[in-house]
């Protein structure tokens, strides 16, 4: 039985020196489950938790090839926000943000949500018009959004380049105060612990090597730890979606690309918000340890190497200095790359597959982390009831066949240009 985390428990352990119990059991696979989820990342664990919590499906297993949280849930830049303007995205990501807001209490695990606010910058009048439209869409959906003019941005973020020589003059910005950051590892651990308490088996070091089939129906998986039967099977493996889907004979509209992230050496508190540059895909925030966290664009060609290309490092550094000249002498401490499942329109696939009782959640592009709670919530509903949750209807695997590409940023249907 999991011990409840509280100030009282903390004091008791501090005084008695009693060791803390394991946060989740080391489960061995059983012969059969109601639902088997492939992938012990944020989405897989959240799906397992909501299956047990919301739908009382308790015989659930999460199979993870390595250890939980070792993939993209620990490789992202930890941002959460709901400033999307396509109908469907707006409501989905707002649902996610509302779940983030209650998550620490829900899971009895401090995920350290910090709603420090995100400012998206405009560097020209037409860009500010676009942001005004987005802000209006958000407000019509009951989401907080404030349009800022140049003076208001300067009062909020005085350290940006407001000089006459600035390469990209700042015209204004859009502020969502409820946006912010979350401690990403805690999301994996919190969902794992809460799901385990509801009876979910979390099975690590268990790689899926094939699917068990009965004609067009999937009835379980072959793994490195033996055969596991399942009434329903769900794939939630981010950058390796194509490989796992291929084991079931499916080809999907996903290509795996590298996305890099960066942390500078730590400095005193300086950047109090999340700031998105408007002239390139670049954004930053400051971590609790003091490092500035930078995010940028994908490298531009498909790869599984988890080692980013140097020109992207250079672009990100140039963006950082163009935006905040005073950080030009900061050194980058480390950078890393995650394998990101890119789709032609930049939107995910979450729902059914052509095979009966096989469900897919993948293709999240840049949006996977912030979507974690809502994706788990809606995916669990879809698996439990066999029908797609209304919030994810537009994320169907078949949408291109119907001409319903779902392109939030209007970039066209190219995986490597999203």
């Amino acid at each position, binding site marked *: 039985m999991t011990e409840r985390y509280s100030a009282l428990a903390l004091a008791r352990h501090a005084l008695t020196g009693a060791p803390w119990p394991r946060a989740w059991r080391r489960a061995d696979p059983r012969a059969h489950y109601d639902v088997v989820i492939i992938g012990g990342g944020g989405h897989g664990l959240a799906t397992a938790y909501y299956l047990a919590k919301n739908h009382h499906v308790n015989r659930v297993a999460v199979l993870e090839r390595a250890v939980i949280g070792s993939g993209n849930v620990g490789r992202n830049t930890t941002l959460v926000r709901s400033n999307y303007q396509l109908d469907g995205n707006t409501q989905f990501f707002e649902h996610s943000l509302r779940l983030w807001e209650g998550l620490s209490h829900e899971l009895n695990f401090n995920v350290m949500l910090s709603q420090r606010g995100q400012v998206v910058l405009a560097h020209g009048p037409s860009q500010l018009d676009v942001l005004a439209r987005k802000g209006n869409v958000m407000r019509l959906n009951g989401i907080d959004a404030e349009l800022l003019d140049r003076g208001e941005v300067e009062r909020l973020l005085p350290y940006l380049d407001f000089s006459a020589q600035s390469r990209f003059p700042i015209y204004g910005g859009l502020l969502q105060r409820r946006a912010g950051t979350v401690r990403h590892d805690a999301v994996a651990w919190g969902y794992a612990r809460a799901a385990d308490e509801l009876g979910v088996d979390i099975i690590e070091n268990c790689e899926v090597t094939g699917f068990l089939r009965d004609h067009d129906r999937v009835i379980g998986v072959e793994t490195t730890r033996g055969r596991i039967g399942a009434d329903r099977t769900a794939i939630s493996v981010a950058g390796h979606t194509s490989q796992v889907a291929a084991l079931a004979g499916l*080809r999907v509209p996903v*290509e795996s690309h590298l996305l890099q992230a960066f942390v500078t050496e730590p400095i005193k508190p300086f950047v109090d918000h999340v700031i998105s540059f408007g002239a390139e895909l670049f954004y930053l925030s400051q971590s609790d340890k003091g490092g500035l966290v930078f995010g940028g664009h994908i490298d*531009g*060609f498909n*790869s*599984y190497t988890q080692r980013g290309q140097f020109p992207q490092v250079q672009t990100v550094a140039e963006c950082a200095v163009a935006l905040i000249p005073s950080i030009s002498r900061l050194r980058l401490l480390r950078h890393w790359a995650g394998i990101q499942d890119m789709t*032609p329109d930049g939107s995910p696939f979450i729902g059914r597959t052509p095979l009966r009782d096989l469900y897919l959640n993948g293709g999240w592009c840049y949006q996977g982390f912030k979507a974690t709670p809502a994706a788990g919530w809606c995916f669990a509903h879809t698996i439990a009831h066999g029908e797609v949750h209304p919030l994810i209807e537009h994320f169907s695997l078949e949408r291109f066949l119907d001409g319903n590409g779902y392109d939030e940023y209007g970039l066209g249907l190219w995986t490597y240009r999203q």
Partner: protein
Amino acid sequence: MLRIPCPHCGERDYTEFRYGGDASKTRPAHADRDLRAWHDHVFVFSNPRGPHREYWQHVLGCRQWLILERDTATNAVGTARLARDGAGA
């Protein structure tokens, strides 16, 4: 840095090139009315972890379209040939 051996210009940084995607797909016949075949051609990817044949255009060089062999698990680069010579599928 990924370096691409252009048949005209020699080995150059990949930043001189524009990526053009999977070159192993076969375009359906022009009169093909099968929507699924066109869908698969445009939107579906093999996305292999391993050998991959792909288009690159040398936009800052000879401007030719090339077909490059590259391993997506290691980024090891093989030969690049001119796409117009029919090296595509």
